[in-house]
């Protein structure tokens, strides 16, 4: 079998070239890069223990990746012990089917931002199944209405200026919304507030998952994850198996490093969710579903991750915390934003694409892999010191020699 990549490259190049001439991207990314560098410098100065903590997390991630299957088993048992239900999905299809089955028929869903959700195209899948799904992160909400893809993993709508947001909102809400950021934020707050309390199900991702306690740790600033995980009667955590770490303390270390390199001294909210809401206040009888969800589910997703973990060249890709710091340092990203990427962006995104897109992973990754400059500045920024240029070289070699990166079938 032979695949001619020329067409993919031609289309992709056209798109990149267009993005590089987009003044909105230029202004937005330029501003973001400057702010990022300044804030991170200041933040690291304020919390000087961070680099040492990052080194500790690096070791922790190495060990966790090596023992991913063991941690998965332990985590699933912990979730069940907490009166939650744990599932394992080997690929995209399975993950979406499991979530759909848990939700039921034609339900209303509120969703927190999750890169894994993007990877699985979960919202689109659930909408097709007849559910009403609302993205609650403001950036994701804008993109949901705009039918667009995220341009940055942390600030997905980084490329949409307030004037365009006003246009989109005016059309959607059927009334004039001025291009005023405070008013734009307020109108979404009012709209989603009602959704949180009428939704049947809340879905969130997780930044780290502690195997010993069965606890998902989620960081955010808007408060939407707080509401999504607490208000609806059912909560589902969808988490990649690479987020597993042995203990709760480990999970906290991971998230602190994560937010620090994502330019926060401390995020607005850190949510820990480990099971259904419960109370024993009446006669010490444990009763589930007090103020929060009565039912709690965790879906652990593989989708190419164990293939990555098994390959000594690529297991380090799983250490990525998704702080997004590398993107701000990437010369290609600075010019093209999320157009240099698939679901995952930049050089590390090219590597991930080569594993998580099923049978056509390497094919989809090829144009991304060849647009990486292999300049190596991302490695300087990365708190996990992930050697992206090395992996990009190895993947180019596999493309040139026709070797595959493994598929979902390899997942145990």
């Amino acid at each position, binding site marked *: 079998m032979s695949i001619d990549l020329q067409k993919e490259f031609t289309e992709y190049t056209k798109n990149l070239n267009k993005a590089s001439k987009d003044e909105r991207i230029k202004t937005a990314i330029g501003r973001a890069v400057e702010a990022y560098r300044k804030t991170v410098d200041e933040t690291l100065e304020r919390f000087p223990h961070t680099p040492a903590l990052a080194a500790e997390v690096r070791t922790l991630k190495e060990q966790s990746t090596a023992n991913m299957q063991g941690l998965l088993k332990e985590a699933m048992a912990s979730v069940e012990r907490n009166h939650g239900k744990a599932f394992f999905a080997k690929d995209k299809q399975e993950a979406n089917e499991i979530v759909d089955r848990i939700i039921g028929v034609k339900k209303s869903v509120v969703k927190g931002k999750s890169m894994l959700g993007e990877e699985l195209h979960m919202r689109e899948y659930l909408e097709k199944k007849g559910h009403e799904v609302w993205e609650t992160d403001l950036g994701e909400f804008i993109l949901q209405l705009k039918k667009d893809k995220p341009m940055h993993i942390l600030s997905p709508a980084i490329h949409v200026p307030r004037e365009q947001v006003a246009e989109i909102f005016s059309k959607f809400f059927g009334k004039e919304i001025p291009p005023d950021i405070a008013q734009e934020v307020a109108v979404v707050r009012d709209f989603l507030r009602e959704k949180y309390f009428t939704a049947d199900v809340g879905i969130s991702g997780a930044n780290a998952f502690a195997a010993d306690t069965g606890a998902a740790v989620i960081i955010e600033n808007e408060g939407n994850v707080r509401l999504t995980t607490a208000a609806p009667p059912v909560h589902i955590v969808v988490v990649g198996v690479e987020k597993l770490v042995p203990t709760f303390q480990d999970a906290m270390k991971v998230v602190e490093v994560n937010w620090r390199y994502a330019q926060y001294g401390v995020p607005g909210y850190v949510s820990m969710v480990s099971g259904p809401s419960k109370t024993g206040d009446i006669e010490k009888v444990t009763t589930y579903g007090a103020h929060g969800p009565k039912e709690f589910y965790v879906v652990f997703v593989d989708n190419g991750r164990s293939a990555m973990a098994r390959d000594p060249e690529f297991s380090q890709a799983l250490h990525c915390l998704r702080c997004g710091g590398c993107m701000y340092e990437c010369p290609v990203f600075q010019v093209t934003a999320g157009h240099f990427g698939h679901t995952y962006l930049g050089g590390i995104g090219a590597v991930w694409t080569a594993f998580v897109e099923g049978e056509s992973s390497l094919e989809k990754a090829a144009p991304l892999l*060849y647009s990486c400059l292999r300049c190596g500045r991302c490695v300087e920024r990365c708190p996990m010191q992930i050697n992206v240029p090395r992996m990009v070289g190895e993947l180019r070699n596999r493309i040139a020699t026709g070797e595959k990166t493994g598929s979902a079938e390899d997942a145990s």
Partner: protein
Amino acid sequence: MAVEMKLPTVLEIIRGNIVKHGNPLALKGSEVASWARELNLPARGEVLFYTGGEYQLLPFIDSLVKTMTHMDQGSKGFSLMMGVRNMLDKAGINAEKIYASVLAKDKDRFNTVCYKAAVILKKLGYEICYSGEEELYSGALLYELGYWSDLRPYAQKVADVISRSGAKTIVCLSPHSAEVFKLVYPKLVKDWNVEIKTFVEYVWEKRDKLPAVKVDGSVVIHDSCRLARELEIDEQLREILQSAKVDYKEAFRNKKWTTCCGGPSKLLFPEISHTIAERRVGELEETGASVILTSCPYCLSALQGGKNTAGVEDLIEFLYRGFEA
């Protein structure tokens, strides 16, 4: 099951040229070595002066990129143009003519970079030898582009040429060659035990002998990614300039935080490459320097293409001015 993926033509042609002709654009050995005619460098010696043909390539790359920007890379005319000599394109492009016209127009500056580098080393008191028309390109692009299975036999060929010089040390003009010799060849070539140095390191070792270089205004150093990050050479450049009594500025993103010039994507994504180069030039010009100084053929070519007001020079050209004065 292995799935064969056909990469864009431009990459396949570069690969073919390296493997078959020992040069990414199939330049002839006589063209690559023409700069050395007057110097009568010996073919054998302790220290091998290695150009890899990379500075010599630059005028051709630029000319090709200019054409490519207006051309569909999948077209037949394109593949003919990319270094397949002696073939007349039925669509009307004469590959040989493109080579010839470039030679006539632009060869001087980039060809003389090698000459100047050799003269500088000799003036500093180094005895160097040179493989001349026999010299083969290092294969750095085979490594870069993923053609690792081609690199193994090719590296052996390169190593054979190098071993004929009897040299114990190779001094490389291009950091890309130095990188592949230093970090990749040991894994591919049996008994590869030559010492690898860059031109910058060699000059640095005898920097006390450097004459002063006069500049109107100041210079700013553009650290090449390979030099600063893979080879960890950055302070040496500053110390060389101090020895040459040159006032230099630092860009906000420098040394191991240097910004890439965009060069690596020049062949596949020329427009993006150009935009990246322009942005980098902007960062360098912010310092108010009148000359941008680099030490890598691809940085030189890329930044030259993205320049605004400041001039772009290779360290070799720059230091040579001191000897001329």
